């Protein structure tokens, strides 16, 4: 009988602990499929960051290191510099990457550190129970912005791809989402490009995935996808913000 579907070998058999409607599962799957298709699982080292995805070290079938909150780019730098033949990726949330780890992120990018960064932006701190994130939208109600994010006192959300696209070391900065089959396919293509860039030694690649957090948003999975489309994509437009392969280099 012809095999029409196979589970990617780059994922272990450990069941995901993620909530229903959370997009971590889809993104894990895409990263794993890309590692499989590029045939690099055996030489890959992943860096799990603090947040819901910290347990990703149990899910990916490659060597994994768990980093301190925000420090994944520094840990990845150490791994990559020690064994440059390794394929090294970080998997980071918005609190990790854009708040506590912003210095590590900006400097890894500006050094053109030859790593691939998967950035999950769901506008909230998931693991600690739904606090305001650096990417929480203006007016967004969270546990620590109970009256809605007031930009006068809590500042404005950070647009990470736009920010990193200004740095010469960034090879690819692309924002995607996984709310539809079409967008899942675009996301996979972007992730694959991010890893291919590393193999081709092109520098720092970041793929920002606009994601959901139904549990902490207080919405059903279906409502979450709707909220993502109607609110997040307006503030965080999808697209390629930097691609050194594209003509002229920048968008």
């Amino acid at each position, binding site marked *: 009988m012809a095999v029409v579907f196979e589970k990617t070998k780059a994922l*272990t058999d450990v069941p995901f602990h993620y909530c229903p409607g959370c997009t971590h599962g889809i993104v894990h799957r895409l990263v794993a499929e890309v590692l499989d298709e590029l045939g690099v*699982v*055996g*030489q*890959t*080292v992943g*860096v799990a960051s603090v947040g819901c995805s*910290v347990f990703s*070290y*149990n899910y990916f*079938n*490659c*060597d*994994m*290191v*768990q*980093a*301190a909150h925000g*420090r994944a*780019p*520094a*840990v*990845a*730098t*150490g*791994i*990559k*510099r*020690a*064994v440059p*033949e*390794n*394929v090294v990726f970080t998997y980071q949330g918005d609190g990790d990457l854009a708040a506590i780890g912003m*210095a*590590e992120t*900006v*400097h890894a990018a500006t050094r053109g550190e030859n790593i691939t960064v998967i950035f999950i932006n769901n506008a909230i701190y998931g693991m600690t129970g739904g606090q305001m994130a650096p990417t929480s939208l203006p007016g967004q109600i969270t546990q620590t912005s109970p009256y809605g994010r007031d930009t006068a006192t809590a500042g404005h959300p950070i647009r990470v791809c736009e920010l990193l696209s200004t740095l010469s070391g960034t090879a690819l900065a692309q924002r995607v989402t996984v709310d539809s089959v079409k967008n899942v396919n675009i996301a996979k293509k972007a992730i694959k490009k991010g890893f291919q860039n590393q193999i081709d030694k092109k520098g720092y690649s970041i793929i920002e995935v606009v994601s959901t957090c139904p549990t902490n948003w207080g919405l059903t999975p279906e409502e979450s996808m709707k909220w993502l489309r109607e609110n997040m994509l307006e503030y965080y437009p999808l697209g390629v913000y930097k691609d050194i392969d594209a003509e002229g280099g920048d968008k």
Partner: protein
Amino acid sequence: MAEKVLMKGNEALAEAAIQCGCKHYFGYPITPQTEIAAYMSKRLPKEGGVFLQAESEVAAINMVLGATAAGVRSMTSSSSPGVSLKSEGVSYIAGSDLPALIINVQRGGPGLGGIQPSQSDYWQATKALGHGDFQMFVLAPSTIQEMVDFVPLAFEVGEKYRVPSMILSDGMLGQMMEPVEFPEKKDTAIAEKPWATNGHQNKRPKNIVNSLYIEPEVLENLVKERYERYEKIKAEEQRAEEFMTEDAEIVIVAFGASSRVARSAIKTAREEGIKVGMVRPITLWPFPEKAIEKTIPTAKKYLCVEMNMGQMVDDVRLVVNGRKPVEFFGRTGGVIPTPAEVLDQIRALAGKEM
């Protein structure tokens, strides 16, 4: 026998690291340790190594974590305020059972403090460089030769027991020059690191370097297992120099720079007929309890000489355990005690006692 060369402490330490196979250095500028980073930046690219000036001390120690997880010898260096910033990473290194070398060329504190030599990070190094139950292997050099010799030792012990190591130096040893000789035996790194996360190549199960354990019983068992290793280190790795202690009635305990001062005071006091000697801890953790214990039969009094407000004296008192009085003399803030000051202390103790 290798030729002796005149070198500055910080540079000698850096050269020793390169010679024993540490080719991955991550650091950040801070006085009085910056010569280590500068030397590494000059030498490592020519040795096929990696010098990286990190964006912060926090990043530097996490780069060390990554490199050491990938299986190579790696180090970072800093001075007191910078070492505080590294404490998070050191705790993760300890919690992940990784070896790594951290250098602290101490200066006065707290806060930004000063830039002159100090020993006021003794507690930090031996009790709590970071959160959680853990220890580091801590060596205290007192000469530039020891700045050289302790580098391979720190790596070897750290790799054997999979614990972070620290060389607790100070601004005096970092900045002064002395003739040194480099060991003949070069790269002593152990080849087999089956725990390393450097790609399984589809030939072994995946490795995970991790310090997160949600189940309390699991975490407790891991910590207990680590403490069994600490007990082995305590039993096998204590080091101290015993100087004129055979008949010593006054036993000075001093490490690093202050032991140099104490040594000259002891020589003068001996000429005056005072039976004084010194135990110089070389390992600050494990604390050399055995060497202190050996002096109990002749000792009438102990005097701890430190460049702080009295930190190691706690450990001396724990060993002496009330059997003899333990006095303290120290200068702090970057002030180095003079031999005359220490001699006065010895004379006073001798006068009171004899």
